[in-house]
C-alpha cells in the first residue's frame, strides 16, 4: 500500500481498525526502515512520498591490461571489466578510476563504460576518463610502477533513466598506439 498523509485526530471520534491499518501499518511500511533489506543501502525517493532502496556497487581489477583498439572494447589482456550490477531508479552516479597512459606521444588512453538492462548507454568519449600523453620509462612487469602512469577519476551522473536492474561494464580505447591501464575501479551509486 502507498503512503497516506497522516490524519488529524479529533476527540470523541472512533478509532477504527481501518484507520490504524492505513495510518500506522501502511505508512510505517513506506519508511526506509521497512524498505531496508540489505547492508549498505541508501534510500532515494522514487516520487512524492515514495522511497526506493539503493545499494551502491563497485569492483576493482588491479591487473595491467592494454588495447590498440580505436573503438571502445574489452582489454586484450588483464581481464574484462570491471563490472557492476545494481538496481537503479531514474538516475545514477558513475565513478571511473584508473592508472593509464599511451605508448605514443599525443595519443589517447581512455576508459568509459557501457550500461545494459532497464537502461542502456554506449561507451563514449563524453563520459570517459582519459589522458592524451605518452608514458615515460620502460615496461617492467605485469603490474607497472605507478610512477609511469597518470592516475585519476572521472565522476559523471545520468538522469532520465528507466528504473530497474542494470549492468555497467568498463570499456577502453586508444586513439592510436597502445593504451595501457591498471588498478581499474568502477563504482556505481544508484539514485
Amino acid at each position, binding site marked *: 500500500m502507498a503512503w497516506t498523509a497522516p490524519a488529524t*485526530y479529533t476527540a470523541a471520534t472512533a478509532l477504527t481498525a481501518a484507520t490504524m491499518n492505513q495510518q500506522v501499518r501502511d505508512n510505517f511500511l513506506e519508511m526506509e526502515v521497512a524498505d531496508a533489506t540489505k547492508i549498505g543501502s541508501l534510500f532515494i*525517493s522514487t516520487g512524492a512520498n*515514495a522511497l526506493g532502496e539503493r545499494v551502491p556497487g563497485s569492483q576493482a581489477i588491479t591487473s595491467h591490461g592494454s588495447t590498440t583498439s580505436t573503438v571502445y572494447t574489452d582489454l586484450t589482456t588483464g581481464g574484462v571489466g570491471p563490472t557492476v550490477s545494481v538496481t537503479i531508479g531514474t538516475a545514477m552516479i558513475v565513478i571511473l578510476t584508473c592508472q593509464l597512459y599511451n605508448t605514443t*606521444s599525443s595519443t589517447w588512453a581512455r576508459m568509459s563504460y557501457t550500461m545494459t538492462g532497464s537502461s542502456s548507454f554506449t561507451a563514449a568519449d563524453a563520459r570517459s*576518463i582519459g589522458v592524451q600523453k605518452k608514458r615515460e620509462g620502460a615496461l617492467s612487469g605485469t603490474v607497472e610502477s605507478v610512477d609511469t602512469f597518470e592516475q585519476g577519476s*572521472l565522476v559523471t551522473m545520468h*538522469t532520465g533513466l528507466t528504473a530497474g536492474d542494470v549492468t555497467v561494464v568498463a570499456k577502453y580505447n586508444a586513439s592510436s598506439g597502445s593504451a595501457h591501464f591498471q588498478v581499474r575501479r568502477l563504482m556505481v551509486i544508484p539514485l
Partner: protein
Amino acid sequence: MAWTAPVTWAANAILTAAQLNTNLRDNLNQTMPALVTAATQWCVSTGANALVQRDIKNARVETSQTTASTTYVDLTTVGPAVTVTTGTTAMVILSARTANNTANTNSKMSCAVSGATTIAAGDNFTLNFSDPTINNTVHFSTCYMHDAVNSNALTAGSNTFTAKYKVGAASTGTWEFREIIVIPFN
C-alpha cells in the same frame, strides 16, 4: 510540528486525540516518505531528530570552448550550472576534458556560488591541468566540500553553482564535456 520522542503506552490509559496527533501524525510527518516531493531526492539531518529533503543534481555542457582569460570567467556557453537548496554543507564535483595550447601552462575549471551564498571561483578548488606538450588533453574530475571545516560553508537556502574557467598564464585553454554535480549534505 517537530519530532516528539515516542510515548510509552500504559494499560488502561485513555488514548486521546492529542496523543495520536503528537505521536502519530506529527512524528509521521517528520519521516522520509512524508518529506520527499519528487524523484531523486534524499533526506539529510539538520539536527537531532530533524530531517530535510534535498535534491542531488547535475548539469552538463558538451560543447568545446576556449578562453585566454587569466581570471575566472564564463565560456561562451555559461556553465554548467546547478541550482539546489542546501544547508551549510555540500559536495561539488567538477569534470571536463581540458587542454592548453602552451606548454606547462595551466587550464583551470573552478566553481562560483551565488544566491544565498556568495563564493567566488578560486584556485583552492579547481580541476587543473598543464602538460609539457602543447594541446595534450586529459579528462578527469575533481571533488571538494563546502563546509565549516574548510572555512567555505554555504548559507542555507537556494544556491547556484556555476563553473568558471581561466588559464594560468598567457595561453588558450580548452574545455569540453563539462559537468557539475552537487550533493547537499544538510
